[in-house]
């Protein structure tokens, strides 16, 4: 699927404009702070109804405004689909309105199912180098894009967890008793789905990483759940009961999928302890690429494909040497497959090397887009 054109109004520093984007490859060239990332953020917002920057929505409207508006038409990539879809996201004060073909959407989940994007940005570095929570965030986001049911299970799990923590703080044993069956049910569902996701990543990660990094030894992904694996329901209840008094003292739940770990290993050791910054950065990039490919695979298997998410690549090639750049680009969907990618570049980067006849190139200057 791809965006044909985007209209922005009062969105950060971007000048109000309608910007044609009907190409598989769109390049945004400009110095830092001119609006390239803001434009990617606008695209992401149109896909998810939220920002990837994790800031408050109220900070988005341009200076002096209390609202912003984004509109786009996109072709959903399904062959023979008669019409482009129209999506609009607006925020006025604190009220957000998301419409798809003129109809208001009640849940952002609907949008995610319809129109996914995958963003490659600097913050992704923390998937490789950061704390376990950031890694869980990536794999959760990935699983959520592959299955709406996962988003639902995760929401329920987090909600039960909050209730359980509140009950622990109150030493309300009778309520913990009736929360635990749900805690365990949603928790096991998450573990099962994460195991399946591990399988999918394992099948391609080591090879893809080696293709770009050329380390000579395989780097593998492992999933280390907090709960003991392959246990019966009853023994899991026992496990929780044995830890309960400790948890009541601490007032918080000490085990469960919210403490699961994802690990990268090489030569039997924890790779992230030894790896260089460049090698870590490559991990986050390869993870994103696999996310993109898994989505395409899911769509193809379910008979929808070929359908790719929109790719938003923010300055990611900047810190790679030429060889790694080339090999990384080889892992992205090839031209002509219907995948749309937006790249940002600094003016001094050799972006011309990647341009072909169909590439749309915009110079971004002070929020303005020029051909």
């Amino acid at each position, binding site marked *: 699927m791809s965006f044909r054109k985007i209209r922005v109004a009062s969105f950060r520093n971007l000048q109000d404009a309608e910007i044609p984007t009907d190409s598989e490859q769109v390049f945004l060239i400009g110095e830092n702070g001119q609006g390239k990332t803001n434009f990617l953020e606008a695209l992401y917002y149109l896909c998810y109804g939220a920002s990837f920057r994790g800031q408050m929505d109220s900070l988005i409207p341009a200076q002096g405004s209390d609202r912003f508006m984004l509109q786009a038409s996109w072709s959903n990539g399904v062959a023979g689909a008669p019409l482009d879809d129209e999506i609009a996201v607006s925020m006025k004060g604190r009220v957000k309105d998301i419409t798809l073909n003129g109809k208001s959407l009640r849940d952002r989940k609907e949008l995610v199912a319809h129109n996914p994007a995958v963003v490659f940005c600097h913050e992704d570095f923390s998937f490789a180098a950061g704390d376990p929570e950031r890694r869980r965030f990536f794999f959760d986001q990935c699983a959520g894009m592959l299955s709406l049911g996962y988003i639902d299970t995760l929401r329920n799990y987090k909600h039960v967890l909050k*209730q359980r923590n509140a009950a622990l703080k109150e030493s309300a044993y009778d309520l913990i008793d009736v929360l635990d069956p749900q805690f365990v049910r949603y928790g096991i569902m998450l573990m099962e789905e994460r195991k399946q996701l591990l399988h999918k990543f394992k099948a391609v990660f080591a090879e893809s990483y080696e293709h770009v990094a050329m380390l000579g030894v395989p780097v593998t992904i492992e999933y280390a759940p907090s709960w003991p694996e392959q246990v019966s329901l009853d023994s899991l209840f026992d496990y929780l009961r044995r830890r309960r008094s400790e948890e009541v003292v601490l007032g918080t739940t000490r085990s469960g999928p919210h403490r699961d770990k994802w690990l990268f290993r090489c030569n039997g050791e924890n790779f992230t302890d030894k790896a260089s910054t460049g090698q870590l950065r490559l991990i986050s990039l390869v993870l994103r690429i696999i996310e993109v490919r898994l989505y395409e695979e899911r769509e193809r298997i379910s008979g929808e494909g070929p359908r790719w998410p929109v790719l938003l690549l923010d300055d990611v090639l900047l810190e790679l040497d030429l060889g790694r750049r080339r090999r990384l680009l080889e892992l992205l969907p090839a031209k002509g497959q219907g995948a749309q990618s937006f790249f940002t570049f600094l003016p001094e980067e050799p972006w011309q090397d990647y341009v072909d006849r169909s590439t749309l190139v915009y110079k971004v200057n002070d929020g303005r887009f020029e051909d």
Partner: protein
Amino acid sequence: MKALEDLVALLTRLPGVGRKSALRMAYYLLKADPRYAESLAGHIAVLQQQIKFCSICGSYTETDPCDVCGNPQRNRNLVCVVEQPQDVITIEASKEFQGLYHVLGGLLSPLDGIGPDRLRIVSLLQRIRQSRLTGAVIEEVVIATNPTVEGDTTALYLKKVLEPEGIRVTRLATGIPVGGDLEYADRLTLARSFRGRQPL
């Protein structure tokens, strides 16, 4: 115009009413037939005096006990437990349930500090025990809380306290549709739900 401003301020407290709609309502009332305004004011004034909670089941009623609790034709072996008084009105509108009701007045939620003592659970146990002294023993309790985390928690808690009493505890597969105005599809869903209720 303080009178107008005060009214608008009061109207905006109603659910789903913003300042714009409140202003429209206020202007409408200003122009309307005075008898309409008086009648509306009168009905609002006596609403809380006339509509009470049934002392047995806890649903809204003008007489105590309510029409359901007072009706000898209802199936007295079967009690449907719901979260809110308005759920009783919804289920009654479907005409799919012939038993009695018991309103909890909320759902268990440690996050909001709502424990079992804040709900009408003790009164449910009392009703069950008292029913054994009559010829109409309560045998089954159908829990009709919505399938949310709080609804499930409450259902599991009720099962825990009711089963030692020898009560069969069942659960509706789906929740109760919102609003008393039931469409055909909602009625059908409720009908199926009551028929296909499962042991918890």
